[in-house]
């Protein structure tokens, strides 16, 4: 048999290739200028991300490298989120650029870009091994970034912790993938779906092996997403890492985990998701993790005194809401996940950007130090309040529509069949914990607004940080009031997973 090299369409991969090269440019630029250029390197990084975005817009849908590299609506939607998260993380890093990372600016920005490249590969890969490599390329730079304040104990602790947990979870994921390969004889996700079904029908006893595969992969991805019981690293890493890195983690890394989950479970193992409680059904297991995430994240966040830890627990809870959309497995499910992530990006990156500028000025991440801020920094306080209300899901902000969409997806599914009515419980827990979540988000608003004393801090905001905050503010309001274009875009995603498009 003649072996034919599959057509590799490099054009499909243009944005990724460009971004990778640009990361090298950033590294080199820093060395060539003897690490003297302060802000130029930051702007250079921002420009690179923008050009990648333009290239992405011109790269049409299609596939390359056989069936390994897909540019479908899902890949493109999530690539926009990755680039957006990277852009905003870089934009809000200008404060620490001048102070805390003086000697390693090139590495800092270059690693953010490399991690973004990994996420983009992940979003496009349609095959388990390249997916795994994409995930590794995403997380390895993040280990370094988390520990970037070398002389700060907490940051080093965060880096080590994240590294150990991350390495362990990757191993678990790989272990699960090896089982899938063993059962299906392929790493191509679409082919695997077919082969697994055939194997399942032919040999009745693959159930147990499949359970092992599902559980180990769920643990692996669960770590990345910070879903309980695999969430313990989240608050520590968020607290210790440089704040823009924590922001990037909370959006970029989470979105990458979601893509991996969607590809392996929602697509590859879709046959093994039933409303009936089968031993190899992963839906209810994930639902249980989502419930734990919402309950635990939202209740523990109430007790936090450090705003970064609080946002860490809030991100655990938000992951829980997103997983509701994942387990619904209907036409709304994946669209709602994508839209949720999109809306969450603006609110969370915006909140983190403000936490960053506050920390740059005051050195504090304590919630109590925000007391009276609305008098000394009224604009910033109002903006932070809007981001927090969006995270809590108050209309007409984007966060509300995101929650509405996710819950709508679940109610649609629960309503469609009696056997899926357990989803009502998921919705119920989600809604009640939303009320809990309002308490801790409002607590920060309370500190800023309700105190009669004045805050001693005047907060200067650098131009790039201002830009990031403005983009997030516009995003949170605009996509709350006029979300239709994004919803249309997100509505195309389920089709590429075999769900009938609307």
């Amino acid at each position, binding site marked *: 048999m003649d072996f034919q090299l599959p057509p590799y369409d490099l054009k499909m991969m243009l944005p990724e290739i460009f971004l990778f090269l640009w990361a090298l440019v950033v590294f080199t630029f820093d060395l060539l200028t003897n690490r003297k250029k302060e802000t130029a390197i930051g702007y250079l990084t921002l420009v690179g991300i923008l050009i990648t975005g333009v290239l992405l817009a011109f790269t049409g849908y299609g596939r390359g490298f056989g069936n390994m590299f897909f540019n479908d609506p899902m890949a493109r939607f999530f690539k926009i989120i990755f680039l957006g998260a990277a852009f905003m993380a870089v934009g809000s890093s200008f404060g620490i650029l001048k102070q805390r990372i003086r000697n390693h600016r090139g590495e800092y920005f270059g690693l953010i870009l490399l991690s973004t490249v990994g996420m983009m590969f992940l979003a496009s890969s349609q095959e388990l091994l390249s997916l795994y490599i994409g995930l590794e390329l995403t997380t390895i730079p993040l280990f370094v970034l988390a520990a970037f304040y070398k002389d700060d104990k907490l940051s080093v602790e965060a880096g080590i912790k994240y590294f150990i947990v991350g390495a362990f979870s990757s191993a678990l994921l790989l272990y699960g993938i090896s089982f899938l390969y063993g059962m299906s004889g392929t790493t191509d996700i679409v082919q695997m779906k077919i082969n697994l079904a055939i194997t399942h029908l032919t040999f009745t006893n693959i159930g147990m092996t499949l359970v092992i595969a599902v559980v180990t992969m769920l643990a692996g991805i669960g770590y990345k997403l910070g879903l309980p019981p695999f969430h313990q690293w989240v608050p520590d890493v968020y607290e210790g890492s440089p704040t823009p890195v924590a922001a990037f983690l909370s959006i970029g890394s989470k979105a990458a985990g979601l893509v991996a989950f969607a590809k392996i479970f929602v697509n590859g193992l879709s046959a093994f998701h039933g409303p009936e409680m089968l031993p190899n059904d992963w839906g209810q297991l994930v639902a249980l993790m989502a419930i734990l995430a919402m309950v635990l994240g939202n209740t523990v966040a109430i007790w936090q005194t450090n705003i970064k830890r609080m946002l860490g627990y809030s991100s655990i809870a938000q992951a829980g809401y997103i997983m509701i959309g994942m387990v619904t497995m209907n036409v709304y499910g994946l669209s709602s996940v994508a839209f949720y992530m999109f809306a969450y990006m603006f609110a969370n990156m915006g909140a983190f950007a403000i936490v960053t500028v506050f920390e740059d000025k005051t050195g504090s991440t304590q919630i109590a130090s925000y007391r009276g801020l609305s008098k000394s920094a009224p604009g910033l306080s109002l903006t932070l309040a809007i981001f927090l209300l969006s995270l809590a899901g108050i*209309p007409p902000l984007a966060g509300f529509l995101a929650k*509405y969409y996710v*819950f*709508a997806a679940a109610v649609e599914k629960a309503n469609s069949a009696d056997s899926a009515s357990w989803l009502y419980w998921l919705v119920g827990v989600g809604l009640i914990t*939303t009320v809990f979540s309002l*308490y801790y988000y409002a607590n920060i608003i309370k500190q800023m607004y309700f105190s009669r004393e004045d805050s001693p801090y005047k907060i200067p905001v650098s131009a790039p940080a201002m830009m990031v905050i403005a983009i997030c503010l516009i995003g949170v309001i605009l996509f709350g009031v006029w979300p239709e274009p994004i*919803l249309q875009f997100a509505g195309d995603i389920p089709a590429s997973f075999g769900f009938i498009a609307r």
Partner: protein
Amino acid sequence: MDFPILSSLVFFPIIGMVAVMLLPKNAFGAIRWTAVGFSLPPLVISAWLVFDYFVNFAAMGTMAYMEGPFDWIPSLNVQYLMGADGISVPMLALTGLLSTISLIASFGIKERVKEYFAFFLLLEAGMMGVFCALDFFLFYVFWEIMLVPMYFLIGIWGGPRKEYAAIKFFLYTLFGSIFMLVAILVMYFTSEPHSLNMLTLIDHGPTLSHTLQIVCFSFFFVAFAIKVPVWPFHTWLPVAHVVAPTAVSVILAGVLLKMGTYAMLRVNWPMFPEALRTLGFWIAILGVIGIIYGALVSLAQKDLKKLVAYSSVSHMGYCMLALGAFSSVTAIAGCMFQMVSHGLITGALFLLVGVLYDRAHTREIAAFGGLGSKLPIYTGIMVFFSMAALGLPGMSGFVSEFMIFVGAFGALNKVLVGISIIGVVLGAAYMLRMVQHIFLGEFNLARWGDLTDINARELVTVVPLIILTLVIGIYPKPLANLMNGTLEHLVGLMSR
């Protein structure tokens, strides 16, 4: 395209909010008058709506001034749809009137003036929106939007324990809203084709199974009952009222509570007639408990504002009793009358409590005595509204209570209605006790010697309320005719 009348009610305050935010922080005069200025167009328009609806649509009770449906979020079938009928128009006018009055009454606010008026205008926009929205999503957005300014208004400008009161209000109401959200989603996905249009869903509701009707009805009911507040969901109300600044209390009692009963009439009652027949009696019982409980608790209050707050629980109980007697047009009309009249009377009472508190810095009933000799005008007005609140004939409170009793007596268990009439006696007791303690008796010259009487600005805020209370009390027919067509239509839907 015609002038979007109803949207203008919502968007004038929003434009006003932006205008206020653009003004310099210390230009207090400009901020105040801009805010009042932007609340005037909605007031004029809503007053014109009452007149126009009365002339053109009242007899049929049709839904008028429709705007839309325009596609807003087509992916989720969300539309922009506004409309008003005989139950929304009086509420819109009440909102317009009380908003302007409260803004004028807020001129005494000295702290963070700009933010205060900006939040207040946002609040007005949300309230107007709730009374016009005919799309569930839109309705929910307006319903929730209002919580945010309210949270800030209580939390920043409130009295002691303001943080607690603000978050309690916010969480309590949001807790109710999530039930509404589930019910909305269930209604949406069970309808075919999927729709969020309230008018379509009113036809869809009765086709649901009995269980599902009961569930949806209860979920909507919890959301609305928290707002009313129906006993036993009332605990946020006294807390919020006691700390809220005067003008916010006026809006809270005058408009926000009515949103609950309005929403029941607009959504719950016509949409699930079968559930209503099953549960109506129990709702009436909750109403009667509210009447008696609120009155008894009022009787024991030492704080003047808390007394008025608990009297609201009692008065809104009459509305619930009337809503329990859903088969009688008279009772439902009485409910609407009670909503309007309670808005006027309790709004005025809160304003007057604020007037006294601004001067005396205490609201403890026992601290006063014999104020009648020192503050004759104030005393006169306060006694007038106390009489109105206890239901003296010739004022609007009497008309509404009378209609509710007449309607409910025919439609409900007569013993139950009989028990509720005790509430009238108790109402007289707590109001007269308050009047006696504050205005009659010995005057403490040493302590209250330099109290001044009500000033012109404060008079401007209460005089319109006096006039309307009297007009509705003496000649209720125009208001009854305004609503009658719509109410007959609604009662028809409820008895399907």
